C-alpha cells in the first residue's frame, strides 16, 4: 500500500492513535500531513531507516490510509464493482491489489482488498472514497463501514518481519494469509502486505491498544520505526506510482488530465478479461496504445528534481513526477510521465543548475514494471494468435 500525496495545505492535522509513540521515537522531528493525519517524515535518518527496512525490519504507522470494512451478502460483487481487484475469486485470507476507475476508465486511486471471512472484506485505499462507496452500494446488498477512526494500523517490513512478530508474541495463525484473532486479549487482524518490493505484515487492531502493541514490537521485536521519506525511496525502487504525485485522480477538482491504468504503468491491475469492474467498458473505448506512460528511470545524477524535463531522441517528451536518491544503486530513481514513443529506453534529463545541460537516464526495471511488461507481452501474444 502506498501513501497518497502529502496535503498541500496543512489544515490542523489529526493525531493517529500511534502519534504519541511516533513522537517520542522521532529524533529528527520532521512531520508532514497525509489525508489530514500527522505523519513522521524522518525518525533518525533516512538512510538508516532505509537500510533497516531492507536488511532487517522496520515498523511504520499506516493509520493515515483509508480503510473500510465491507460486509453483506454481495460484498464481493460490490468490491469488484468499486475496484478492479477480483474480490469474488479471493479465498478467505487472500488479498488482491486493484485500481479504482471512473466510468470512463480514468484512474481514481489504488486499492487493496482482503477477504477476512465469508462476508467480511477489508478495503484499503490511499485516499478516502466515501461517496463512491455510498453510490456503489445502491442496488447492491453490501455495506461499507469506514473504520479509520476506530483502528490503528502498523506495517512491519523487511526480511526479519516475521521474527519481530514472533518476538513480540504477535505471531499470526498463517504466514501468508490474512486472519483475525485475539492476541493477548486484543482483537487483531493481520495480513501480508507488500510495501514496494518489501514483504511485510500489516497489523490492524482497535485504536485503544495502539501504544501497547507498538511498544511490544519495539521493545521485544527490536524493530525501528521508518518514516515517510525512507518509504518514499522504497516506493520508487519498487515502481509503485503515488496518487496525487505521479498521477492525478480523474475526479480531482479542476483536473483535465485523466490517466488510464496503462498510462500509469499498471495495465496488469485492470485486465479487460477480469470479472466486471466499474470503468471496464469505458476502457474498451480507450485506444489500446496509450499516448503517455509513467515510466521508472534511473538517472546518472544526484541532483534531479521533480518537474525536470525528460528528453528522448533530443526532443522533450515529459517530466519527472517524483524521484529519490537510491542508496542501493547510487543513482536517482525517478518516475517520469513521458509521451510517445513510450517504448524508448534511453532518456536524458535536464539538470536544474545553470549551464549543466542534461544527464543520461535509462529505463529502470522495477518489480511493478516487470509485471506490467509481462502483462503487455502476454496481451500482444494473445492478440497475434
Amino acid at each position, binding site marked *: 500500500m502506498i501513501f497518497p500525496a502529502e496535503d498541500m495545505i496543512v489544515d490542523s492535522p489529526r493525531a493517529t492513535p500511534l502519534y504519541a509513540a511516533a513522537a517520542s521515537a522521532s529524533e529528527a522531528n520532521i512531520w508532514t500531513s497525509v489525508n489530514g493525519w500527522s505523519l513522521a517524515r524522518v525518525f533518525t535518518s533516512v538512510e538508516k531507516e532505509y537500510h533497516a527496512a531492507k536488511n532487517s525490519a522496520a515498523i511504520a504507522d499506516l493509520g493515515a490510509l483509508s480503510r473500510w470494512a465491507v460486509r453483506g451478502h454481495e460484498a464481493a460483487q460490490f468490491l469488484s*464493482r468499486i475496484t478492479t481487484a477480483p474480490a469474488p475469486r479471493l479465498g478467505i485470507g487472500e488479498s488482491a491489489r486493484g485500481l479504482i476507475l*471512473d466510468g470512463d476508465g480514468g484512474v481514481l486511486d489504488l486499492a487493496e482488498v482482503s477477504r477476512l471471512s465469508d462476508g467480511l472484506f477489508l478495503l484499503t485505499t490511499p485516499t478516502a472514497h466515501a461517496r463512491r462507496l455510498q453510490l456503489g452500494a445502491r442496488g447492491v446488498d453490501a455495506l461499507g463501514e469506514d473504520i479509520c477512526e476506530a483502528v490503528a494500523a502498523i506495517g512491519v517490513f523487511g526480511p526479519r518481519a516475521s521474527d519481530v512478530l514472533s518476538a513480540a508474541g504477535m505471531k499470526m495463525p498463517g504466514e501468508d494469509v490474512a486472519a483475525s484473532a485475539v492476541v493477548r486479549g486484543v482483537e487483531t487482524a493481520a495480513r501480508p502486505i507488500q510495501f514496494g518490493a518489501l514483504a511485510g505484515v500489516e497489523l490492524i487492531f482497535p485504536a485503544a491498544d495502539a501504544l501497547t502493541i507498538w511498544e511490544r514490537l519495539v521493545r521485544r521485536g527490536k524493530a525501528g520505526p521508518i518514516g515517510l521519506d525512507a518509504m518514499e525511496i522504497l516506493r520508487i525502487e519498487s515502481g509503485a506510482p503515488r496518487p496525487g504525485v505521479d498521477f492525478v485522480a480523474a475526479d480531482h477538482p479542476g483536473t483535465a488530465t485523466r490517466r488510464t491504468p496503462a498510462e500509469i504503468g499498471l495495465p496488469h491491475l485492470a485486465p479487460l478479461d477480469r470479472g466486471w469492474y466499474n470503468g471496464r467498458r469505458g476502457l474498451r473505448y480507450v485506444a489500446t496504445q496509450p499516448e503517455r506512460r509513467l515510466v521508472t528511470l534511473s538517472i546518472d545524477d544526484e541532483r534531479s528534481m521533480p518537474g525536470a524535463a525528460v528528453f528522448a531522441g533530443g526532443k522533450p517528451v515529459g517530466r519527472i513526477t517524483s524521484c529519490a536518491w537510491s542508496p542501493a544503486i547510487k543513482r536517482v530513481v525517478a518516475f517520469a510521465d513521458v509521451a510517445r514513443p513510450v517504448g524508448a529506453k534511453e532518456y536524458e534529463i535536464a539538470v536544474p543548475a545553470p549551464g549543466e545541460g542534461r544527464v543520461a537516464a535509462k529505463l529502470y526495471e522495477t518489480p511493478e514494471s516487470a509485471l506490467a511488461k509481462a502483462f503487455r507481452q502476454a496481451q500482444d501474444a494473445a492478440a497475434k494468435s
Partner: protein
Amino acid sequence: MSDAQHKPGAGRIEGGIDAIVIGADAEGLTAAAYLGRAGYNTILLEAGVDIGGPVCARELCPGQNYIDGEHLISILDPAVIADLDLYRHGVSYAARCLDTAYFFEDGETLQLGGDLQMAAAAFDDEEAGPAFQKFITDVFEAAAFCRPGFEAGPASDIEKAMRAAPRALAARLNFFSLAPAQEVLDAYLPDGPLKAALLCEAGFRSAAAPHEPFSFMTLVRRWAGEIAGLQGACAYPQGGAIAVVTALRRAAQAAKVDIRAATGVASILIEQDHAAGVELEGGGQIRAPIIVAAGAARRVFMEMIGAAVIDIEFQRAITAARPKLASGHMHLALKGVARDEKTRAHMNRRLVYAPPREALRRAFADARAGRVPSDLMIEAVFPDALDEETGGEKMQLLSAIAHPLPFDEAPDAARRGEVEKAILANIEKFAPDIEDRIKARALRLASDIATSTGAPAQDYAAPPSIIEQVALARVASSAGYVGGLYFCGREARIGAGLSCAAGRVAAKAALFEAKRGGRAA
C-alpha cells in the same frame, strides 16, 4: 430451475436473430421497423398483451371509445413518417393544422390559427402584433436550429452546428435555453391575453414552471416539431393518436419484424461488454448482437442488467430523483350534441384554458408540494368533431389533459375524486354546465397509464426541464457503454408527446455501428 422447465420454451435458445427490440410502444415499433427495413432479422418483444404502449383505444361506455395516452400529435418526427412510409401505412390527418382557442378566467377568449407564422402576421393588435411576429420569427428560427439537439443524436453534429451559429442567434439561444418562460415573454410581448396564453403553453406538460429557469425551452421544443410540413402545429390523425401506432405496427410487419406480445424480458445477456441476447421471463434465450431497449432506464439497466454490473456514474445519472409532478388525462362522454353556440363554434379547435400567471405559479407550487391545485391548465379536444368517421349520434367525446397535478405513486379514491373535481371545475370555465351532460367519465392519471403498460408510475410523471432532459438523454443513450445495446426509453426522449425520434436515432445508431463493425446481417 426446475420451475422453468415446465414452461414452454424454457431452456430453449433461439439463434439466427440480428436484432431484438424490447418494448412495443411507439419508439420500440419505430426502432424495430427501421431495423427490419434494413434487412435485419428483428424480433420485437412486448411484456404486455397490447402493442402500442400507453396509446390504445379503451371503452368509456358502451358505444363510446377513447384513445388513451395521447390525443393530439405535435412533435412526431417527420423523418420517421417519411422513412417508414407512414402515410402509406395508414396515417392521415383528420385535422392537420388545429386552431387553438384560449379561454381565460375573466371570460375573455383568444383564437390563434394553427399556422403560427400566419397567425402572427394577421394578429390584430397594434402593439402586440409586431411584437408577436418578431417573437414567432425568433423562436421558430431557434427551434429549427435546436431540432437535432432534441433527438439525442450524435453530440458531434450538434457541436458543429452550434459553432456555426451566427452570434446573434447564439446569444438568443443562450437566453432561451436558460431563462424562465416568463422572462422571455416579458422581454418580447406586452401584457395581455396573448402573453398569458403563451405562458401556459410553455408550462404545459412540463415539470418546469413558467416562472422558473429553463422553462422557455419547453415551448421551443414543442415548436421544433413539424406536422405535415408546418412548424409548431398540432394535428389530429384520422382515428386518433392510435392511428400512428397502428401505422408503425404495419410498417414493422411490412418489414418482416416478428412481433411477440406477452413475452417479457427477464434479463439482457452481456458477454465481453457487448449485448449478446436476452433471457425471457418464461425461460429460454434469444441471442442477437443488437438490442434496442424502449423501457424505462431503471427497468432496463437496474433490473435487466443489474446494478452490480453497470458503472456507478451511469447508475447515478439515470436513477437521480425526478420531479414529483404529472399531467392527468380526462375523457368525458357527453350526452347529446353541444347546444350552446360558444362551445359548438370551438368544437373543431384545440381548446385551452389558461389560468392567470399568479394562479399558474401557485398551481405548480401546490402540485409540487403534493396538493391538488385549484387552477389547472386544460387542453381539450372533441375528437368526434374533428374526425367525423368516429362521431356518434347521441354522444360526444371530450378528451382533455390537465396540468400540473401532483404525482402520486398510487392515488386513493379520495385523491382521485379531488383531482377529478379540480379538472371538471376548470373545464367548466370554458364549457359551462358540462357536468350535467356527462354520461361517463374516465380519469387517467400517470399511475393508471403506468399500470396498463406494466411500467412504474414514475415513468409517466411530467418530464423535467428540457435542458435536464437533453443532458439525461445523452447519458441514457450511451447505454452505459454496453456495446450493441441501444436505448430509446423514457430517458432518451425529449419533450412530452408522441415523437418516435428516439426510436429512429437508436435504430440508426445500431445500423451504423453494425456496418462499421462488420456485423451486418
